[in-house]
């Protein structure tokens, strides 16, 4: 199931991402990489929540920085 998520992110990378316009993410790793890591480590549902939360944080008012999926604080 978790690989469905990983596949979805890759599908996004190869189809929609170039259309949306390319910008570098303010976080490291980038949001899509974070989503892949989160899916691999936490499974489909937790991974989706984590990736969604990360996307919401990746806005112009946040500060960015180094942020790995394994260091998440949502699920403890």
């Amino acid at each position, binding site marked *: 199931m978790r690989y469905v998520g990983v596949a979805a992110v890759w599908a996004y990378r190869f189809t929609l991402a*170039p259309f949306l*316009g390319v*910008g*570098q993410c*303010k*976080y*490291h790793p980038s*949001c899509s990489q974070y989503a892949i890591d989160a899916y691999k480590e936490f499974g489909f549902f937790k991974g989706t929540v984590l990736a969604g939360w990360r996307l*919401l944080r990746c806005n112009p008012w946040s*500060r960015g920085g180094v942020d790995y999926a394994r260091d998440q604080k949502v699920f403890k």
Partner: protein
Amino acid sequence: MIVASILTPLEDLLRHILNALHSLGLPWAWSIVGLTIIVRMLLVPLTVKQIHSMQNMQAHAPQMKEIQRKYKGDRTKLNEELMKFYKENNINPAASCLPLLAQLPVFIGLFYTLRRFAKKPPPGDLSWLHFVPNIAKHANSHWSGYVLLAIYVLSQVASTYFMSGTMQKSQRYLMMVLPFVFIPFILKFPTGLVLYWMTTNLWTVGQGLVTRRLVPKVATTPTVAPAGPKRSSRTPPKDDAATGADIDTAAPAPRPTPAQTRRVKKKKGGARR
């Protein structure tokens, strides 16, 4: 299917805006361009923020160069160190994912709207600029579709060029090659959709050009000083209308002075083409 039903309210909204623009007297094609510009204009506040952060980055460029030199071989480490540096110096890197993704529902909504458009074309003029006969038809149904497609690919590559920043080289190349890979798929899309892409890409390129010109301006602030007297010298020759060339040459000179107002003006002008 699921995506379509989730997006129905947005689709309705987009169709309403499209209809409103059309009822104002714009042909359908220009309504699509107008809708795109409206969406992008809503994102302008974000862009202004990006410009500020870009200027901030510019100020810290030497230190960042040093970091880049230090971790030249290791991309991952370099990225990490840069991010740490941003955080320490309160720098907000230019791009972020959410504004980009905000375009996604609009784009998908527009896709469905235009597909319905193509199935049941509404009454009214469907041509654009006298060379696109029907924006509801597939892009490969007329040679004009290929022209739009070429502009789309060029603008996509150009916007990648402006936006990619410190992106990894391999990824950057991939992003530049992908538009070419997509050509056969895009050919099956309604021309109106290509029109949307073209407009939004050109807007991005315009923004990129504006920010490019704006950012070095910070370093060369002394140019503001000579601009003052120049403007006053421009006013007297204005009396004789015959020397129109004189005004033309003088016109670009005062440009750098109102850096704040020009920023907004230019953006709108650059994108409308």
